Each structure stands twice: as C-alpha cells, then as structure tokens.
C-alpha cells in the first residue's frame, strides 16, 4: 500500500502530469492518423524518453501507448475507416451514428468506454503484476530458457498465416542479437572489426526504423495528396443511462480485454470482436447492431483498451512482450536500466509503482484529452502525407541519433527501415525482429548457465515444475495459430448469421 501511495505522489507532480498529457495527445494523433499506429508512436517517442527520469519516461510511453490504441477509433467513426483491425466493430457502429449526424455522441461514447476499459485494466495491472512477479522469484536459468522460447514462440502467434516466415525472421534476428561480446567469455563476436558493434546492434534505432520508415515508404506508393472527406464532430454528449443500462456489458467486455491482453499476441482485435460478439448475443436490441448500436461501441472500445493494461502484466512480471508496442516498451525499460521480473518490484519499486499508478491516471486523462482532441480531429485527420512523411523521417533520424549520439545508430535505423519496407511488402512480419533482439541475449545466457547447472544431462531441467509450466505454455503458443483461426472462423460465422 505504501508503494501505491508513493506511486500516487510521484505521478501527481505537475511535470509528470504534463508529460502524461503530452504523451496521450501525441499517442492519439499517431493512432488517429490513417496508416500510423500506436507501435510507431511508441517507437518514435522512445528517444524522447531517454533524457527523462525512468518514471517520467515510462509515463510518457504509457501515454503514447494508451493514447495510440484509443486514437485508432477516431477515424473509424469520422472516416468510417478503422485505424486498426480492433476498431472495425467501432467503425461499423460509429459510421452509422455519424451518418445520422450523431458523430459527437459516437465519439463521446467511444472516449468514455476506452477510458473505462483502460482504467479497469490498469487496476488489474496494479494488483496482478506484483502477484505474478512472485512466481518470477522462483525462476532460474532453465525457466528463463523456456520464458525466452515462450516469448519467441509469440513469433508464431504474431505471424498468423506466415508461421515459417515468422520463424525465419525470428532466427535471423536471433543471429543479429549474437553480434557483440559473447556472454560466456566476453570475446567480440561477429563484429567484423567494427568498434561500433562491440556492444551489439542498437535495439531502439532498429525498432524506430522498422516501425516508422515502412509507413513513410508506403505513403510514397500512391500519387498526390489523398484528402478524404472527414465528417464534422457534432455535439459531444453522454447520457447517464448509456452506462447504467450497460454496466454488465462494460464490465464483461473489460474482463475479456484484460484476459486477452494477458495472453501474448492475442491482441486487441480479438478482444474487440469477442466483446462485440458477446454484447450482441446478450443484447435485447440485436437489430441495432450494425446500425449504430451504443452497446456495440461500448463493448468494442472498452475491450480493446483493456488490452493495454493486460499486455503489461506478463511484460513487467516475466519480461514477455506480447505485442509489438509492448516489445518497444520493454526496450525502453532496458535503456533505463530496468529489468522485468521480481527484482523490478523490490529494487525499483518506486519506479514500477509510479508506472502502475500512472497507467491508471493516463487512462483517466484519456477521457479529457480525447474529448478535447475529438473537437479538433477534423483538422488533424487531413494533414497531408507530404508533411507527415517529412516529419517522421526527421523525427526518426534525430531520435535515433539522440540515444547514443552516434551516426552509426542512425545508419542502423535507415537500414532497418529499408529492410522493414521490403519485409512488409513481401509478407515477412517485422514484430519478431523486436522480440528476438530483446530476448536473444537472455536466451543465450540462460542456456549457458543451464549447461553449467546440469553438465551431464540438460534434460533434467524438465523435472523442475516451473520449467514444465512454461514448456506447456510454449506448446500452447505453437498451437495458438490453429486455435485462433478456429475462433475467428466461429466469430465470422456468427456475425454473418446475425447479419442475415
């Protein structure tokens, strides 16, 4: 409790509040701009967080992350284009409300539900992450191997439909992670005589390049400025009955979001569709779904924002980044010298509790920040791509330089950007790169330590109960693409049955 109070005191300083608000607004802009994403926002903002204190840095990135997830719903309502797959149900319902001249009401509902879902998930994060971290206390090198493999098996989940390509990218990235001094004898390896590579490849510049540059190149693919018609934000208002009548729907959807968030890579899109489907099943006004249903918007938005807090639970306690933004978040933690796991909650309690409390405050602030932003959304959504692309290139270049004040890092960002674009164009997933670069060193160290622990027979490690648990999780994760496909097929079948 003392840690939570200390977290509150840290968060509620004017500077931190300002940083969170700045992060939220930047995140909303990144989420709202078609083609941009929360991942890109977090990647671009990591360098800005570098000079800040760790607490402030994590609050800034939390703001960008949560703001980005929320922001994706704004074009879904005003343009009818879901910024992310998770906003698809919102687009369906929101666009109908917009066509009836009720875009303001749709945006207000979406903002309130997002804030509610995010806030409840941050409470789950606040209370569940420390509990899970206790398990991390019992984690030794053999368990770390399985945790790293589990994290990497997320590669398969993230690469649904392209599992082999995901694994290929994963292995090549694991090899990239071996560049630098090897963890066993400290001898330079694969450095090609380049002193800049002695410390290994630079993680954050590579992530910035991978997640921002491909979008810039994609903007260049189409000719001219593509202005779209943006609906005006009408009068934004909420009714108390919207929530009193939907409290079960909101709570159920939020719980779905948190649960899905905890499962690595299950993602906000699954949460959003699951919650939307459950809301329709239990609704007494099924005919309104697809025609501007308030229940649908509340379900979809509360669920996809609840994923944010849920996804940080395994990240903070076990170091498993379940999604691309979470992976970049983990990279930022490493930059600030923070190692996820039990020690994070003991040695760096003041930082982690500031983050946990801050995450909740961020989600409250999203309500106010989002409300204000929606009033001006019409002007932001029409920013020409020439300006967006130019700004991103400059931000990414300067940001990559700022981390180590090295032009070599900037070149790594550039190369990663070009490679990332080629990957995107040919259906090679980029997220596995982030996961492999983050977990590669941990995996190699854990393997060498385990070999020392069990010199005669390494398979003895499977007699350890936690190793077995994580092994089971690895197996489940490899089976996940099949399970997920079945779920999606089932949901699609139900949706089409409902529509007909």
């Amino acid at each position: 409790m003392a840690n939570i109070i200390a977290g509150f005191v840290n968060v509620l300083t004017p500077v931190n509040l300002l940083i969170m608000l700045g992060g939220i607004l930047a995140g909303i802009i990144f989420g709202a701009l078609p083609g941009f994403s929360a991942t890109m926002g977090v990647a671009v903002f990591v360098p800005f967080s570098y000079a800040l204190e760790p607490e402030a840095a994590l609050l800034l990135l939390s703001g960008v992350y949560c703001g980005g997830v929320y922001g994706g719903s704004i074009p879904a309502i005003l343009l009818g284009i879901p910024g992310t797959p998770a906003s698809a149900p919102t687009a369906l319902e929101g666009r109908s409300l917009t066509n009836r001249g009720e875009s303001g009401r749709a945006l207000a509902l979406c903002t309130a539900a997002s804030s509610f879902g995010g806030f409840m998930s941050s409470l789950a994060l606040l209370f569940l992450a420390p509990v899970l971290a206790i398990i991390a206390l019992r984690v030794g090198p053999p368990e770390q191997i399985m945790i790293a493999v589990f994290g990497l098996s997320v590669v398969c989940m993230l690469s649904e439909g392209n599992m082999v390509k995901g694994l290929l990218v994963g292995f090549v990235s694991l090899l990239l992670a071996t560049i630098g001094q090897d963890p066993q004898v400290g001898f330079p390896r694969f450095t090609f005589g380049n002193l800049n590579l002695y410390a290994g490849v630079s993680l954050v510049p590579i992530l910035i390049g991978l997640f921002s540059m491909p979008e810039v190149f994609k903007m260049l693919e189409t000719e001219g400025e593509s202005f779209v018609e943006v609906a005006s934000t009408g009068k934004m208002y909420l009714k108390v009955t919207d929530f009193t009548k939907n409290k079960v729907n909101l709570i159920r959807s939020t719980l779905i979001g948190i649960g899905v968030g905890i499962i690595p890579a299950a993602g906000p899109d699954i949460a959003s569709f699951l919650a939307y489907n459950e809301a329709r099943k239990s609704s007494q006004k099924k005919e309104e779904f697809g025609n501007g249903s308030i229940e649908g918007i509340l379900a979809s938005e509360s669920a996809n924002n609840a994923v944010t807090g849920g996804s940080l639970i395994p990240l903070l306690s076990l170091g498993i980044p379940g999604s691309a933004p979470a992976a970049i978040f983990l990279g930022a933690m490493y930059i600030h010298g923070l190692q996820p796991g039990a020690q994070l909650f003991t040695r760096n309690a003041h930082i982690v509790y500031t983050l946990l409390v801050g995450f909740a405050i961020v989600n409250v602030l999203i309500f106010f920040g989002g409300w204000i932003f929606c009033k001006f959304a019409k002007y932001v959504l029409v920013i020409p791509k020439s300006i967006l692309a130019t700004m991103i290139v400059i931000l990414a270049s300067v940001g990559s330089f700022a981390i180590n004040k090295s032009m070599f890092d900037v070149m790594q960002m550039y190369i990663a950007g070009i490679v990332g674009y080629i990957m995107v164009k040919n259906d090679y997933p980029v997220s596995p790169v982030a996961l492999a670069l983050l977990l590669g060193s941990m995996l190699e160290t854990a393997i060498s330590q385990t070999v020392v622990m069990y010199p005669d027979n390494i398979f003895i490690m499977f007699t350890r109960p936690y190793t077995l648990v994580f092994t089971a999780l690895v197996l489940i994760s490899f089976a996940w693409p099949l399970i997920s496909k079945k779920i999606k097929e089932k949901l699609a079948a139900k949706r089409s049955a409902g529509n007909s």
Partner: protein
Amino acid sequence: MKSRKWDPLICLALAAFLLIFVSQLGKTKPLARVYPTVIIICGYLMIGLTLIQWFINWKKGSITVGEALSKNRTLYIIVYAAVMLVYLLLIEKIGYIPMTIAFGIFSLIYLKCKNKIVIIVLPIVTTFVMYLIFTHFLFVTLPPGLLRGIL
C-alpha cells in the same frame, strides 16, 4: 502460408547473409560458437521450408503478387530513399540545422506539397523546435557541422 513473387530472391539474400556469419564462426572462441551455429542451422532450415512452400504454391499457381508498383513509382521511392541516405550521411559534416532544413524543403516539394509557405516555414520551424528540445531539454548536442562555433 502465403508466398510472394520475390520470396526466392529474399531467401537467397538471407542465405548469403547467414553465410557471412558462417565465415566468421572460425574467428570466435569455441565456447561462443555453439549457440550461433544452432541458430544458423535453424535459419537455413527455415529458408528451405520457405522455398519448399513457395515451390508448392508456385505449382498450384497461388503465388501472391500483391499490388504491383509501376516502374516510375518504384523509382520515385528509390530516389526518396537515396536522398534520405545523403541527408543522413551529410548531417554530421554539414550539420543538423542546414541539412534538416534542406531535406525538409526537398521532401515537401518532392512529395508535392502545394502550399509554398508550408514548404519554407515548416522545415525551418521544425528544425529549430527539435534543436531546442534536444539541446535544452534532452541535453543531446545535435551535430553542429559547418555551424560549429556559431551555435
């Protein structure tokens, strides 16, 4: 699994990339060699699987071509990427401020920004705002280049 037209070429490039690492294996300490060797073998296995999958899809005639870019568009992107590279290579010698302003103006014109005031004002304002943020708030000295001694 979806296969793309360029998969064989990409696999070839990746195989060559792995080969560079193979050539360096001898220069590493024996103890530090085992783990990367396993990773390289797995990498080659995945390249093999990707190629097999591509071949099966090619036989079935189900290679995804995707949105084909015209030659002009491809050239357009390559030129932009090349100018970006020049910007990054010269930023240290010429300096952050002049290079970023120059790149910003080029980028806006190249990407067909129509507003002339934006073309001039935006790069200048962005460059100086970023400079102020990085030097005064984030304490990162950006390359002064030719302006060394002035800034």
